[in-house]
């Protein structure tokens, strides 16, 4: 087997593949392209990739089936799911099926790169912590917390409100956090949609996917003043919002319980 390549892009639209290819190449990332899931699987037989980015809607085998096949074959590459039909259901489903990220189309070069870099770093962190090379998203988050992918967490409190934040893995996956942009008080936020932006040292913006829908009733203002605080204590002092959930019963089961991670 030759040396490991960075990215395998899978999409039935050549223009999307070319765009991904150009963007990545300009950043000196090594990219291969596949126009179908079958072609992608074939390439993976002879080549290792650190990261796979795949469309959902493709003829014959779709993105979800590819994701399942990758897991089945024991391939450790992280998979990012991307689709033009960016519904909350698709995003949440992809993440619960083991995709490490979800990126809605159309995306800018920066949005793509921020997701790719995060994905690449995520792979590095996980594999370095786990010498076996298993990239299964083990996230050390406190019990009674719930998470959306490896990115954001939610902690339902006894009074009916819920706290929202990002995991330490998400913070580590983005290099050198420089700023956090939070949404204002009383905003409505929705599960699967972006609810905060985090800027890294390169100037890339990382969107935080909201784990739970609700109305923001408290914003952790200290965080915007001292973003580094989140690196120290992402699960407690580094919370983002306190919200009044609008659809807790429906949305919570879609998240991964951190308690189950500890089993």
């Amino acid at each position, binding site marked *: 087997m030759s040396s490991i390549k960075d990215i395998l892009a899978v999409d039935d639209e050549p*223009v999307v593949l070319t765009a991904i290819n150009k*963007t990545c190449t*300009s950043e000196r990332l090594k990219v291969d392209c596949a126009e179908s899931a079958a072609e992608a699987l074939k390439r993976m037989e002879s080549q290792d990739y650190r990261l796979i980015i795949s469309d959902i809607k493709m003829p014959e085998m779709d993105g979800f089936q590819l994701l399942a096949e990758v897991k089945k074959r024991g391939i450790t590459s992280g998979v990012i799911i991307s689709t*033009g039909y960016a519904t909350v259901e698709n995003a949440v489903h992809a993440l619960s099926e083991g995709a490490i990220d979800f990126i809605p189309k159309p995306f800018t070069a920066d949005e793509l790169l921020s997701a790719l870099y995060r994905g690449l770093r995520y792979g590095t962190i996980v594999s370095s912590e786990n010498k076996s090379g298993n990239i299964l998203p083990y996230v050390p988050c406190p019990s009674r917390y719930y998470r959306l992918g490896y990115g954001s967490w939610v902690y339902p409190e006894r009074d009916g409100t819920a706290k929202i934040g990002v995991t330490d893995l998400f913070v580590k996956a983005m290099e050198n956090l420089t700023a956090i942009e939070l949404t204002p008080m009383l*905003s*409505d936020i929705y599960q699967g949609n972006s609810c905060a932006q985090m800027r890294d040292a390169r100037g890339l913006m990382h969107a935080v996917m909201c784990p739970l829908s609700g109305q923001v009733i408290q914003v952790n203002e200290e965080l915007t003043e001292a973003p580094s605080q989140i690196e120290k204590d992402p699960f407690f002092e580094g919370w983002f919002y306190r919200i009044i959930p609008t659809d807790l019963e429906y949305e919570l089961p879609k998240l991964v319980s951190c308690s189950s991670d500890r089993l």
Partner: protein
Amino acid sequence: MPAWLDKIGFRLILVVGVTAILIIGVFSYFNIRSHTEVLLAEVERRANQLSETVKYSTRHDMLFNQRERIHRQIRDIGEQPGINRIRLLNKTGEIVYSSKPDDIGKMVDKNAESCFVCHSDQKPIERLTISERTRVFRLHPDSVRIMGIINPIYNEASCWEASCHVHEPEQKVLGVLDVTIPLADVDAQVQSSRLEMTIFALVSFVALSCIIGIFVYRWVEIPVHTMVTATHEIAGGNLNHALPENRSDELGQLARAFNHMTRKMAEARLQLFQSDKMASLGRLAAGVAHEINNPLTGVLTYSSYLMKRTASQPDIQEDLKVIVRETLRSREIVKSLLDFARQSVPKKSAADICEIIRRSLSVTENQLRLHRVKVETNFNEDMPHVVVDSNQMQQVFINLLVNAADAMSESGGTIHIHLARINLSPYGTTQIRKALCNKNHNLMSPDIKINGLPTIRLKAKSEGAEGFLYLDPIYGSHQHEYGILSGNIMSLQCPQCLTSVINESVRCPKCNALTYSFEVAGKGVFRGCTRNGCDWQQWPIMDEAGVREFVEIKVRDNGIGIPPEDMSRIFEPFFTTKGQKGTGLGLSVIWGIIDNHDGKITVESIPGLGTTFTIRIPVKS
């Protein structure tokens, strides 16, 4: 049965015509009868006179028994025109003298017409009136009618004292003078009268029919035909079809009621249409979005990639920035369509509406300049924040501005953007659930509903008419149902106890008409104007308690305006007045966005003068 038999016009003509003929017929009958009597009486008088003349002129000759002279005299008189014949009969019935010499010597049956009157009691009657001595008869069925008059010749002293000694003194009647006159003239006159009357009746019938026909055609046929045509139009789906309302009669009222109904139907259909079209638009958008997003990914990734590559070339950067910005806007449009498809709520946050409009203006700046459009605004900084999806709202204003610019003529124009914070009472939205009369009778009527809500039923009297009035239960809405009522309302009562609800002391501040009032259970007094057409209503408790604050944005242009026939359709998906220019998605998307914000969007337009869009967004407390 032929169709024309079923027509109101024909039936009316038939009834009036038959009535006219009947009246003229009865009148003619009596008229001709009295006319005939007058004519006969005249002939009778003449005959009698003649008879007397003959009697007295022959008296002397009789006394001296100058038979030849009598013969000649009777013959000469009998030859006069208009006289049938003159006969003189003796008491035995023998014709002694006659104008027709052949008759002389013949015997007349005592039962024959000329003798019958005198001999009906088997003995001669000495004194008879003229009419008793007169008879009308025909010689045979085909001949003309003849009038005969008999004149008895009485015995006188000179008769029996005369030298001839023919008659005995005991004998009372010596003989009878019988004069007969043909009635041909009279009959001809009567006949011509009958003919005249018949012609008169026929002419009247035709004239009446024509006059009624013309008026029925003008007053009934044409309006009914117009109405039938209108009904067909409405049934065919053209709810813009209106009837002329220029008549003041019942058909005019019907036309106005008809138009009112049509307008209500159009409104209801628009709402139905809107929600239906929105739903199908959503489904369509969902399907299209996926397809659009792939090419959009190409454009967005390429252009943003190029921007990174050309960071050192500011001239290219500017151009690329536009591509990226506009592609991002397209992404938001597609995303909002997808959100719409999922009926998801917009991404609302507290935002400064002035800032949103400013951003929209800077996006459309080039386009407005190109169309030579000036923009005037009245931004004041103390506008309250509204909880909106800034991107969607920006899209709304961009669309409105671009539409306004497109509506301008070559020489350009001005767009006024007017912001105001307004307080709206619950007027137009709050429902009266329980209305009570003075004696606490429930006035609500579940039988008649307006927009699905029970109405307030009042007994109403107007000039001459009486019926029920069903008030729209929505405060400020006036889709009242009028029973059989027309004209001004004279009295309004509780249908149960007939207590008047009219308040003599409170006059309508709008038109000074009388007002009515009733109690709304637990929610104070409700007042309204009794004049049909006046929209004044007052519900003080609601006005005070339920005032909500809105931000009102008016976007007014002085462009070509919207033709009235298009007004009802402009919020429909894919409706466009710009020909091939736009996709027409604009206004229906705007409608959906504003609706998603609990807001209202209305449009007023005067063709040639311009269009004003009014948007009201609630300020959440």
